[in-house]
């Protein structure tokens, strides 16, 4: 038990250090970027005094390490801008305050997380189903026409750029055939059917590329494992093939596949920028893109940290899963 606890603690410490490093790098990028975020709050016309006041109000007049330190501590304790009746309170956890949007970053992110989660989970489920099925079938029917056509499909899937596929999908299925809605997002709580219907095309676009990759991955792993001794033993015991595959081979390919899946999924949780843009879905990716374009530093930092946490968390989940499935780890 001691080992487990030590492992978790060391991972936690590692995570914290990585997050601080990421925050620092993001911060440094924007510090070096010669754009003044106080310009946004300055108004028109922007006099030097107004600009100076805006900078002081937003805290950008302090030296960079003070700003960075403040940002880190504010995550835990929150902060208040201004004084008196017009003070704006950003309560912990305060990932920053977006003056452009008049909203704490935490709220903005929290509002968008369900959207990005919807896209990510749906696409993940789709690509895993397609990928694993395709890979297994391809491996079992190795060399046949079916195998070859599946492999061709994977090449297409990997090469097709997502925005092109997305736009084509919108054009053909949305405008011409009018099967799916062309843009927007409907919350799950509002109407599950509409929610799913609006997301079918984004899911498909995202899943297309990943499914291709996973098909190849699963196929390779399957082929490697089908030649292993334990498969021969399982067959020698008289197990039907589907049990051999289902209970033994799949279990053995689970660890590498799940490890890669965890990382992919973690990356997706940070927001599928291109897909969200194309389908006009306002998820974390779109938020991030707008923030970068508008030099909204606090929002960029907040989203970056959240995305980093997602990836690290999924990494941890992958490691734990590997330890659970594989007793040798």
């Amino acid at each position, binding site marked *: 038990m001691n080992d487990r606890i030590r492992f978790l603690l060391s991972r936690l410490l590692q995570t914290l250090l990585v997050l601080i490093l990421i925050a620092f790098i993001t911060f440094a990028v924007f510090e070096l970027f010669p754009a003044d975020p106080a310009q946004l709050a300055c108004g028109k016309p922007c006099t030097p005094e107004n600009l100076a006041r805006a900078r002081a109000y937003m805290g950008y007049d302090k030296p960079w390490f003070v700003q960075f330190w403040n940002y880190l501590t504010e995550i835990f304790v929150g902060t208040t801008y201004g004084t008196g009746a017009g003070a704006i309170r950003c309560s912990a956890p305060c990932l920053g305050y977006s003056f452009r949007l008049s909203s704490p970053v935490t709220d903005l992110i929290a509002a968008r997380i369900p959207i990005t989660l919807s896209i990510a989970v749906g696409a993940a489920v789709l690509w895993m189903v397609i990928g694993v099925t395709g890979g297994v079938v391809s491996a079992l029917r190795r060399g046949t026409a079916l195998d070859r056509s599946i492999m061709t499909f994977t090449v297409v899937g990997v090469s097709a750029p997502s925005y092109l596929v997305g736009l084509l999908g919108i054009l053909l299925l949305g405008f011409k055939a009018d099967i799916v809605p062309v843009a927007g997002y409907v919350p799950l709580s509002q109407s599950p059917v509409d929610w799913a219907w609006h997301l079918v095309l984004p899911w498909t676009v995202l899943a297309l590329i990943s499914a291709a990759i996973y098909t190849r991955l699963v196929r390779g792993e399957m082929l490697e494992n089908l*030649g292993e*001794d*334990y498969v021969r033993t399982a067959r*020698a*015991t008289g197990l039907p093939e589907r049990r051999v595959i289902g209970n033994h081979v799949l279990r*053995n390919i689970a660890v590498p596949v799940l490890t890669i899946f965890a990382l992919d999924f973690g990356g997706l949780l940070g927001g599928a920028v291109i897909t969200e843009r194309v389908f006009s879905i306002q998820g974390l990716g779109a938020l991030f893109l707008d923030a970068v374009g508008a030099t909204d530093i606090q929002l960029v930092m907040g989203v970056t940290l959240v995305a980093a946490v997602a990836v690290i968390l999924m990494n941890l989940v992958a490691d734990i899963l590997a330890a659970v499935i594989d007793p*040798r780890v």
Partner: protein
Amino acid sequence: MPASEGIDLDLVPGRVLALVGESGSGKSVTALGSLGLLPPTARVSGSAVLAHGGNGEEVELVGAPRAVLDDTRGRLVGTIFQEPATALDPLLTIGAQITEAIRAHRSDKGHKRESRSQLRGRVRELLTRVGLPDVERIAASYPHQLSGGQQQRACIALALACDPPVIVGDEPTTALDVTVQAGILELLRSLTGDGMAVLLITHDMGVVADIADDVAVMRRGRIVERGEVDRIFSHPSHPYTRELLDSVPRLDALREAPAGTGSDQEVGRPNDAVVEVTDLDVVYKARGRRPVHAVRGVTLAISAGEILGLVGESGSGKSTIAGTLTGMVPVTSGSVRVDGIEVAGASRRELLPVRRQTGVVYQNPASALNPRRTIGASIAEPLLLHAEMTSAQRRARVRELLEQVRLPVSMAERYPHEMSGGQRQRVAIARALALQPRLVIADEPTSALDVSVQAVVLDLLVSLQADLGFACLFVSHDLAVVEQIAARTIVLSQGRVVEEGPTVQVLANPRQEYTRRLVAAVPVPDPKVQRARRAALVG
């Protein structure tokens, strides 16, 4: 070219049939092919009939649909494979795998579904039957947590899960230590007592002599001779069988013929010690795991012109000691002097003269030679690195070496994959001798070779040693081989020296209990003698 043709075998309940042959003879292919366990690239034709179907019918296995094969495998025929470590699914516990095997055939036989406790009981029963202690712990363990012998026993339990009338063992003990092997063979023997028929595929005549009742000898895909074991061993009719039996090293040969090759050797000139190892300790430290004490306080010496045999089971530290002599394995404490130079803690530059004087021959000739180089280039490599020779001189030396190892000189242009295992090992020996070393380390050089080839290589080694006078450290787990060529022998167990002395004495009259057990476990390729020994052990 067919791997095997026209085979017909009769398996009788309660008797063990041994299918013997060298590598490439087609014995595994025959047995596994009839069960449909070969890779899909193999084409099996003909007929393999199992005359003990569920209702007394005959079951045709070749070309049978998967359902028929599934029914046969496990229920009628249990299989044990060579490598127990990889034969089990590493992610499931032993108990789970056995349970699965039991369930595979129970549910469709009309028996009512067994309850979990019944299944657990059955698992325990099976594990006890195969001689495993502490069955609860084993049933909950994963394969990597068991030793080799325990893994093989678990595989046997898996094969026995549905009480099949036939057990097929494909070299079940080849990968195991000799003492462990004895136990497994004993177990297999006991299975016949329960009325099972056992088909044992092996290349080890000692094993055959130990447990077989009937023998079938295969060569190049065909059966050349078959008969009862006594007759085959005492009066082999086919010349190949005779050749096979002759080339098997016998552990008791010395006792019958005291003037054997081993005692001809000089015991060595003690004052010309090429290797001096004093109080050697090697500890392997892996992160997160407990350190492994591979070698503890070992002291030995090898003189010029002497062959020292180093025997022990797997994990005894013999390869580690061989590794320290070349400087490949770091020494934790103690002294290792090769040719006067201290190897322990030496830098690469300091080791250079040592390495120049040392030649090594490894176990697996296929991987010891660079597949992309001609063997001439491989042999010339040490010359290139250490000696100042022109290419013409090098070529001349390569020719000379090839002649010494009794290979045709034209072989210099060939690639390793174009040669047989024995030829490759001879090339490795030639390479080891290229710089006229004072020390040759042979780390299990014949373990991967067939018995007939083994004889040739050993013979060659002995004659070369007599000619060139180098000191030789011969590491092996095969006592019979060591007896054949080594003058002195050291027995290692778990990193410690258990016994040392002249080979004749150590193996014929071992002083230590461990050595006695070791010697006793080695099967002698003589069925009568072996039966007597077994009786003595039991009695």
